[in-house]
Each structure stands twice: as C-alpha cells, then as structure tokens.
C-alpha cells in the first residue's frame, strides 16, 4: 500500500491561508449569527462585516479572489483544507450546517468587495433559510452582485470512495493482524516492535483525519472470530476519532491510539478456556477476568520498562473498567480522577463491546440501543462531557444501524452526518418493492425535493443482529 506523507502540498503561503481562513470562516459565522438576531444594518452586524472584510482583503489582494468551499464535512479555502481548531469548533459546525441547509457548496468573493455586497448576501442568505428551494432563492439574491458568486453543494463521487475504501480496509486489517501478533509475542515472551505499532496507529490517524467515516465503518463489522484483536483495533480507531473531535493534535492522537490498542493486553493472562467460554462466567471466572487490568499494567511495564508511552498505556489498562465514579473494577483505596485517555477508552470500549458478539455474550446490541443504554450511564460510569462529544460523533444513528425509511426502503447507516446528526447517509439494502439489493445506492437523508421536503427519513430502527444481517457483505 502506498501512502503519501502529506496528501496535499502545503506551501508557506497555504499555511498563512490556513490561519487566515480559520479566522475568516469564524467571522462569517459570527456575521450570520448576528444577522439572525439583528437587522443587517445593525451596528453589531456592520462591525462584524468590517472585521470580516479586514480579514478577507489581504488574502484577496494576494490571490485575486477567495473561494470558500464546503466538501463533505470540511471547508476549503482557495483549495486548502481548513483544519478545525478547538476554539472555532462550534462556529465551524454552525456554518457548515447553515451552508448545508441552503445547499451552498461554494461562495466566491471577488476583489473590490464592499460592506453593502456582504449585507446583500446576508439578506439573501437569511431569506433562503425560509425558502423551499433555498439555493435557488439565494442565487436569485446574489446574482445582481458583481463581487460575490455562489455555487450549489456537490456530492462526493462514489468511484473515488471505492479506491479509498480499499486503502482503509488495508489499514484496518494491518492493525488487526499487528494486534494479534503483539498478543502472541507477549505470550511467548518475544519483544514487541513498538515502532511498527506507532506506524500502524499513525496510518489510522491519517485516515481518520481524511476519511473518518470509512474507518469507523470498519469498526461496525462485528462478525469476526477473533473478537479480542478486532476489539483492540476498534477501540483504538474510535478513541482516535473521539480524540480528534476533542481537538487533540496528531502526536496526541497517536499516543491515544497506541494506548487504546493495548488497553486489554492483560487479557493474555486470562486462561483461554475462560476467555473462550461459550456460556456465562461463574463468579470465580469473573473474578479472574476482572484481574486483567492489573495484569495489563504488569505486562506493559515489563514489556517496555518505564517510558511515557508505557506509563500512559499502563494507566489506561488499569483504569478502563474503573468507571468515571470509580464504581467499577479494580476497586481502589486512595484515588483521584481517571486519566483523560482512560475516560475516552472507557466510553468506546463499552460501545464496541456492547455492539459486538463476544464469546460469552453472543447477542450484541444494536448500535442505537447501545448508545441509549450508555446515555443512562453518562455521569455515573461514563464521563458526561466526553460522552456528549461521543454522541455528537457517532450521531443518533451510528454506522451499522438498521433503519426503515419512510420510502419503504430498508437500509444500513453507512456514514454519519456531523451537522445533521439524525440524517445520516444510508446504504439501501431492500428497495421500496421489498427486493433485496446486492449493490444498493448510498443516499443522504439530507437530500430534499424541489419543494424543500426531505426525500427520505428514518421511521424506525431495527436490530441488525436479530436478523443476522452480515454487515461485512455491505461494508467491505
């Protein structure tokens, strides 16, 4: 597999653009928020417009124009993808949501832009929010303007995604086979190649930054024989995805991915006849299984000696079942708060475990059901703040959820929509006539008809496990 170290060449100028563009997007969001409260002529709006133009003009002077584009969940400014800084997160999300509502894909600002142009654009933008054909309404308002142009939101071509999917699959299976190798090596007393582990996680981080939903989709397939290895990788992927939402930098994401990958390493000490037992554990067996966090610490520190990675991994291995309120295991005497990474891993570990078919718990929960149970645990077992970020990440209908649409189509949630959390992209597996589809279309539930009504909406959710639906058939 070939992978470029930097997917796009970013020059020094681009770097400056990135920084300025973050401010510009943030400021545009501020203008729109203000304009929704005040009249466009109000001083709060005009001051915000002046600031917006002050940010915009240097870039336009340099590049001739400024093109702001929404592709997928990301904004691009003059073709440079803008990364989300934590302090701008809410405003970025807001702007993306407002763009999507109005089906705006691109806004081009041309030199000579005046405050009156921006005010006219604002009027059109606000009016479009109430229109059944929002983009057309906006275009009607904007077309007389000489210095602002708009274009409709484009959909991502499926062909491009197929190639990426292959790469993502490879990344996922590399990680699982590595995870398997690590456990085997530790059992036999061999050394573990930590450099390789880092490279694997770096690769996952890269793909999560670029193609988050595809890699998360891989974690939704739960029918593997080797639960432990897949679970470790799934927890690592979901932890990194959540870490990304929390604004962790690349280095921190790698560290988080690594410690999450090793969180269950103590299970190598649990006798396989217990781990692979087909029936429920006895009290004595549970007692043994519950010691795996303790064994994890010992295994990790013996494996690597004390260094920052080993220390953090040991902490997470020890704490990941302790629960936010310390009600879990191991029981401790004098203890402070759980580590941030432990609280992250605790959430995704529960989610992945609940939605997986484990040997001792054959029937997994449907993703949305698991999320609903976890919601009750937030504030007790789970960190409520991190859980909020988690639900905002996976959406109301997580990837892999089986949904019935009002169009009498049955589908699987294929990709979450970070703006419209209740309107994911869905892979249709049974059409409206009840025919099974081998390769059905992937539809976005945000799509609307010319009257502004949604084309499809979720009516009910079903448990894919109850109907033994093999997600691999559809997701691989």
């Amino acid at each position, binding site marked *: 597999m*070939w*992978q*470029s*170290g930097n997917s796009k*060449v970013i*020059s*020094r100028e681009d*770097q400056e653009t990135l920084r300025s563009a973050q401010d510009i997007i943030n400021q545009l969001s501020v203008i729109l928020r203000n304009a929704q409260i005040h009249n466009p002529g109000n001083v709060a709006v005009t001051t915000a417009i002046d600031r917006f133009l002050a940010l915009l003009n240097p870039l336009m002077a340099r590049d001739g124009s400024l093109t702001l584009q929404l592709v997928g969940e990301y904004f691009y400014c003059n073709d440079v993808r803008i990364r989300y800084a*934590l302090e701008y*997160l809410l405003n970025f999300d807001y702007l993306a949501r407002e763009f999507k509502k109005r089906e705006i894909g691109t806004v081009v600002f041309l030199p000579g832009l005046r405050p009156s142009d921006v005010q006219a654009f604002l009027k059109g933008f606000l009016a479009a929010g109430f229109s059944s054909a929002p983009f057309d309404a906006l275009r009607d308002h904007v077309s007389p303007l000489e210095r602002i142009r708009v274009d409709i939101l484009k959909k991502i071509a499926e062909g491009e995604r197929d190639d990426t999917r292959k790469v993502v699959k490879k990344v996922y*299976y*590399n990680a699982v*086979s*590595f995870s*398997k*190798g690590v456990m085997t090596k530790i059992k036999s007393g061999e050394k573990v190649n930590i*450099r390789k582990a*880092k*490279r694997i996680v*770096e*690769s996952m981080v890269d793909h999560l930054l670029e193609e988050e939903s595809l890699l998360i989709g891989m974690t939704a397939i739960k*029918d*593997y*024989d080797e639960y432990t290895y897949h679970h470790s990788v799934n927890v690592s992927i979901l932890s990194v995805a959540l870490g990304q939402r929390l604004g962790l930098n*690349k280095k921190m994401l790698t560290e988080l991915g690594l410690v999450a990958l090793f969180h269950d390493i103590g299970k190598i000490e649990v006798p396989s006849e217990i781990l692979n037992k087909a029936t429920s554990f006895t009290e004595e067996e549970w007692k043994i299984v519950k010691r795996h966090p*303790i064994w994890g*610490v*010992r295994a990790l520190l013996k494996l690597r*000696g*004390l*260094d920052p*990675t080993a220390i953090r991994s*040991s*902490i997470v291995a*020890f704490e990941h079942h302790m629960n936010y309120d310390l009600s879990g295991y191991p029981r401790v*005497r*004098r203890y402070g708060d759980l*580590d*941030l*990474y432990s609280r992250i891993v605790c959430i995704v570990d529960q989610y992945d475990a609940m939605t997986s078919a484990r040997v001792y718990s054959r029937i997994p929960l449907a993703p*949305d059901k698991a999320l*609903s149970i976890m919601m009750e645990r937030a504030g007790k077992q789970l960190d409520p*703040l991190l859980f*909020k970020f988690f639900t*905002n990440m996976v959406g*109301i*209908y997580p990837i892999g959820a089986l949904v*019935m649409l009002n169009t009498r189509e*049955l589908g699987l949630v294929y990709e979450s929509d970070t703006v419209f959390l209740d309107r994911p992209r869905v892979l249709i*597996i*049974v059409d409206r006539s009840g025919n*099974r589809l081998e390769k059905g279309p992937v539809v976005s539930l945000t799509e609307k008809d010319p009257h502004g009504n949604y084309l499809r909406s979720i009516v*009910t*959710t079903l448990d894919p496990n109850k*109907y*033994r*639906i*093999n997600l691999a*058939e559809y997701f*691989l």
Partner: protein
Amino acid sequence: MEPVGESLTARDILQTLIKARKNVRMYPDNNPMYLKTVDETFARFSRYLGEHEALTLAIKQNTIHHDGEEIYANPEKDDNFALFFFKDGVRELTFRRGLNRDEIEEFLKIIAQEFDREQVDDDVVTLLWERDFENIHYVVDEAFLVDIDEEEYERKAEETLKERLTDPNDLLRAYKDGFQGGEKTDTAVVPLSDGDLQMLVKELEKDAAGKIEKLVVILFELIYLSEKQAEIEEIFQLIREAVHYCARRGDIALIVHILHRAQHVMQEPSLKEGGKDYFTMLRYELGQERVIACLAHVLDVGLEIDTGAFGQFVGFLDKNAIPSLIHVLGELKTVRARKYIIDALIALGKKDIHAIAKGLNDERWYLVRNIIYVLRKIADRRATEHLLRAVRHSDLRVRKEAIKALGDIGSHDVVQTLRECLDDENGEVRIAGARAFGTMGTEVAKKIILEKASNKEFRDREFDEKKAFFEVLSRWKDQAVFEFLLETLRKKALFNRARNEENRACAAYALGLLGRKDAIPVLRSVGDSCGDFLRDFVHVAVRKLEGDQ
C-alpha cells in the same frame, strides 16, 4: 553512468546532505561547525529551489535516483543512505520551494538519529510524520508493517465474514418487521455548547501534567490488590523502576513521596513479614549509582530542585549511597551541584565516617579537598586519623583544608601535627596551622602560638604570616596576650629595624582586634613617635577601638 545536468546538481545536493548528517551527529547544536553545516545545506537547497519547483529523490534499497538517473549507490549494509530510508518504507522524498532553514535543520536532526539503537522508539517515518513538514514530503510503502505470516490475514478474515451470508428470509423478516413499528430510537444528541468547550479546554490543560504520579498511585494500589507474595515482589521492582525514572527526570519530590508511601505501606498487615525488607530495598535503590548519577546530572545541568524535598531525599538515603555520592562529586562541573552533593555527604557521613574517608584516597586533589571539607563539617573525632594523613598530602590546597579541619576537630591528638605545621617550610601551611590553633582556642594552643610569635626567628618571617599569627593571638582576649602585644608594640630595635617595625605593626593591628580600650593611650604614644608604616597600623587600631567604644 555518470549523471549529467540537473541530476549532477541533485547528486551534489545529496552529497551535501550526507556530509551534513555526519556533522550534525558529531557536533552539538551551538557549535560553529554545526551552524555552518546547516547554513551551507540550506544555501545549497535554496539555490536549487530558486530555479526549480521541487527536488524529488526516488529511493530504492541501495540506490537513490533523480529524474530516472542514479545519483547514489552503495551495496554495503553499513552507512547506506538509501537503505536508511528504504528499510522504514520511505520510497520518495521531495523538497519543495519554500523550504526554510528550520525545516532543513529539523530534517538533518531526524536523519542524524541512530535508529539502530534499541531504545529509540521512533523510526524515520514517524519522526517525519510528527514533524509534519510544510515543504518536505515523502511517500512510504506500508507493506512492511505486515508480518510475512500475517500477509493473508485480510483475505482470510474477509472470506470468513462473507461465508456467513445474510439469509434472504431473515432480511425479508426484517423488512416486514420494519412496517410493524420496530423500535424508535430514544437517543437524543445534545448539541455542544460554549460551556462544554470551556470544560474541555480545562480537561486538556489538566491532562498536560506528568503521568508518572498517577502510575505511582496505581503501583501502590497494585500492592493492596496483590494476591501472592511473588506479585508484591514484582510490584516493588516496578516501584524501584519508577524511582529510577523520577531520578532521570530530577523529580526528587516524587521520589520522596514514593518513599513516604512505601513507609506507610510497610505497616500494612498483609505485608508485615516482608514489608520492612521492601522498604529497605527501596532505600538501597536510592543509593545506587544509577539513581545518584541521574540526580547529579540533573543538578549539574541546572534544573530547578526543591531544596526541601532534596533534604527529605537525603534523609531516606542509606550509607550505601556514600560511594556513589563521592564518585559523582568528582565528576560534577558546577559549584551548585557540588554543594548539593556535599551537603548530602555531610548529612549521611555520620552514619559511616570511614566510608566518607575512603574518598581521601582519590587521586583528584579537588575531590580530596571536598571530602576533607565534608569531614570537617561532620566534626566527628573518628575522622581525626584520616585527616592527620591528609595533612601530608602532596597538594598544598589539600593540606591547608586538612589543617583547617584538624583545627575544627580540636582534639588533643591533633596538637602535635599542627605544631609541626607551624614549622613547615611552606608559609601557607604555617599560617593554616596557626589559624587551626586559633580555631581550637585552648590554652595549649595559645601557648604554642605565643611561643612561636616570641621566637627570635619569627621576626624574620614574611609580614603576612606574622600578621596572621598576631590575628590568631587576638582571639584570646586575656591579659597574657594583651601584655605580649603591648610589649611587642613598645619594643624597639637597633638592628633589623624594618622587621621589628613589622612586628610592632602586627601587634598594633592585633590590639585593635582585641578590643581593649586601655590600649589606646599606649597606641597613641607609639603613634606619635614612629615611622609612617607603623603609624598607619596604630591609627587603624585606635580608630577601631574608639569606634567599638
């Protein structure tokens, strides 16, 4: 075939890079050679990138290519620049226009790393990835991440999964059930608020703190959670490692915390038998050279140290630490660091004076002098025998320190040796001996100094020496000394008048120090009828006595 045109330039740049890598490995980053290397390499790239958009190098196992032409080849395994990148999966490197000096320097630092060493956890790709250069790009082949026996993993896993095809009847059942209402999800996603973000920022700030403290807490919890003696032993080994880790980072406060907790855990009923042993083991670990040397390094490089914690740390040390402390004392470069170690030896030395005294056998004079200082500060008479030996050391500085120490100890055993010092051929030793007697302050000491100062030959000694002796005498503020000084002050001579004037000046000086104001009339009368040299000393003495008044 020899490269031509652009590839020839590319080859030259590559050679510059290889040479620069060697220099960066060899010199510290403040060395002029290092700085020159980075500047030259940057200049080389800048010239090329001024004319071209980018420089791309294709990397194979033993060769590097530019524009299809081979510009580097090395069939050997060692020092192979192509293999250096190839083995970690790098297949292409591109330097783009806009490359700046910082990027070049960082890149050189990365390629200067010795990745073959086991303790390096990163490979070249990881470092390039973490650094995320704007103008240096790379292409990697990730195939090597998969073990040979795992190559088929993906295919096998997929096959297994796809064997379990969804039963069309189940799917139909799901479809039908979908119309029955199924289950409506009751999950509600609450949008994130500004307050959430603020809380998150606080969490992230909190997370930046070190993690070793938490691990220590866990290790002690593990002791309570242990079910077997062997497990406890294992945990204590890990706690020892934690101590060592803290020492490497200079975290003395945490080491002290660990020891306090270990002391507390010792009381644990389940540990009663072996508890004391574990604690002793930890204290012993503190004194090991690997721990002491780390701390010494931290002290030497000037990291801030919690003085209170250091004191507590020393309190936990056992006497096994003495040889390690002495060893590092000889290696330290800064006064500050030496002071910390000397203080530790002073505190610890009482436990084993002979272990401290072993340091006197070292060949380095400065270390021996420091050890004598330690012994002097300990002020234990058991050190006398060692110090007496040190008085005969070949280095004058050591001898002086030893004499001073003997004066501080001041026992009867040292008198003879100090007396011999007063007759030493070296004036500095004689002065040191006199001062040592002054420190002793005994009657015997006074008599000896008086005797020396009264001696005929004493008059011919150097002025500074005589002044030092008289200064010593002034410490005994009694009648005998007073009278001796007055007598010396009044004494006139027909011959050797200059030497006699020096003696009188010394006496005047000492009278000033003695502090008896009844000396003033005598001093004044002498001052009225003497030469300039003596008059100056008399005036100083009078002023001092009047001032004291």
